[in-house]
């Protein structure tokens, strides 16, 4: 249907590119190639989903946040509490986690999204800190500082048990990530997604073309919270543990670092940055258990100096230097 020329090119932008299959092929190959690393692999897959949720708000809507862990933790604690109190069915636990996180995103977003920039950044931090303290205080329910004990996660569909080798966990995380990625990809290519990019690029002009900017920001903030909640629930269910670190500032900060390493606002930054960071962390901490954070830091500095826009930004620049594709 789309014609030739500029209109055709523009109308075909949402079509799948062969390169988009690469992350999934790598993930499937990884399952067979590194059977002893599947528990780490499952963590990586679930964390990619977390980074994807951050990319949606930061990279697309331009909402700078340091409170993404609030939603991650809300999802994890919801799924964890259900599993610890007699409802270990994983899929409904995951959906409940996402829904609880979305609700917190919606309610906090209604208040804090009235602001922008640094004020908003501070407020996202405040929301996460408040939730952290609330969970810490309610130790009768959450276990407080000790973390939530006694989760019993049932087999998926009553059949696939979570095994010691992480095979079920890996496949479960991979399928959930794939579903969420598909939905997110649709979203960013929809008119709604494009208008988010408009808001990121020039919020003043979006107002002037009659866009309901506040509502759009609230919607995407809520969706992103749901994705972060699903990610937290996945990690809670596959590791059988939830603790206060799930809600900490560290977690919000680290996910941004991973996303920035990969590249912000490109949908695939999460797929590159998260494995890179987590595998480097795993390797460095084995090779040099004392100073491994130094090496992570050095990697970050090098990336920021030599690869603005992350790995994907670097790749784009190389590609344009090697000549235009068309």
């Amino acid at each position, binding site marked *: *249907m*789309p014609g030739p020329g*500029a*209109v055709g*090119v*523009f*109308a*075909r*932008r*949402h*079509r799948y590119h062969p390169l988009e299959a690469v992350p999934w092929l790598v993930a499937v190959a990884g399952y067979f190639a590194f059977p002893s690393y599947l528990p780490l692999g499952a963590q990586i897959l679930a964390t990619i989903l977390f980074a994807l949720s951050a990319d949606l708000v930061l990279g697309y809507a331009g909402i700078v946040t340091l409170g993404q862990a609030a939603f991650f933790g809300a999802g994890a604690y919801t799924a964890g509490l259900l599993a610890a109190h007699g409802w270990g069915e994983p899929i409904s636990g995951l959906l409940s986690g996402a829904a609880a996180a979305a609700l917190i995103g919606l309610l906090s977003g209604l208040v804090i999204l009235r602001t922008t920039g640094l004020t908003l950044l501070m407020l996202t931090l405040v929301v996460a800190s408040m939730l952290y303290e609330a969970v810490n205080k309610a130790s009768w329910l959450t276990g407080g500082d000790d973390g939530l004990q006694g989760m019993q996660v049932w087999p998926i569909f009553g059949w696939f048990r979570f095994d010691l080798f992480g095979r079920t966990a890996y496949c479960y995380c991979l399928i959930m990530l794939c579903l969420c990625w598909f939905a997110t990809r*649709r*979203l960013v*290519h*929809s*008119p*709604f*997604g*494009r*208008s988010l*990019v*408009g808001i990121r*690029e*020039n919020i*003043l*002009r*979006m*107002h*002037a*073309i*009659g*866009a*309901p900017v506040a509502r*759009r920001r609230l919607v995407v903030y809520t969706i992103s919270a749901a994705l972060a909640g699903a990610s937290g629930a996945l990690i809670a269910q596959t590791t059988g543990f939830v603790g206060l670190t799930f809600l900490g500032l560290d977690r919000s900060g680290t996910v941004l670092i991973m996303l920035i390493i990969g590249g912000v606002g490109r949908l695939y930054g999460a797929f590159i940055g998260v494995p890179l960071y987590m595998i480097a962390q795993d390797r460095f901490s084995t090779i040099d258990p004392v100073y491994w954070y130094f090496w992570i830091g050095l990697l970050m500095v090098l990336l920021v100096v030599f690869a603005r826009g992350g790995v994907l930004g670097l790749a784009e620049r190389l590609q344009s230097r090697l000549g235009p594709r068309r």
Partner: protein
Amino acid sequence: MSAPALETCGLHKSFGALTVANAVEFRLERGARHALIGPNGAGKTTFVNLVTGALRPGAGQIRLEGADITHLPQAARVKRGLVRTFQISALFRRLSVLENVTLAVCERKGRSGELLRPAGRHGAVIEEAFALLERLGLADEALSPVSTLAYGRQRLVEIAIALGLSPKVLLLDEPAAGVPAHESGTIIDVIEGLPPEIALLIIEHDMDLVFRLARQITVLVQGSVLVEGPPEAIAADARVRQVYLGERVSV
């Protein structure tokens, strides 16, 4: 029977002790080619911000085709056909020219809230945006990021976005600001070629442009209307000469 396209009654705004709009009475007829001029700091851009809803007036009323829009939010005014451009280009700089205009067209058609169907499948929206680019001579640059365009071309994109919203009233805030003389001709041609049913209000410093385009001129000084009339009368008006020449000599 037909109310003016845009009308303000006793429009007032002050920032602390500084009055930037003082009981402004203004009428923009349907299909007008009207210019708003005045020395720096006269309150021209403030007037635009009040009319479009970016600022709340302290007192007074704004009517669009007879309907009171004083308390409507900015987006609702745009939906009714009250559209502006910006003196300092407000574009989506990293997006392509076509995408800039598509965002506006899509918003006008009420499609921008849609989550499921890819934007690329909204063929009618893209076709309309592209047709607009062809009309303004921007078709060759459709896929270039706006930031790579020459400044004069960017000013055209500024107008193209506004036209994508199908305005009834179009407020052009210094459309040729900062554009070198050899490029401003294209912008004047584009403005001259706009559909006659659009009521135009041009805020401008460039007197060549004003006298070429405007059939009616309002002179604003320190937030108040000094005088209004056809170009010949304004050119001959002693007070206008004094404001423009007098200020430059005495300050």
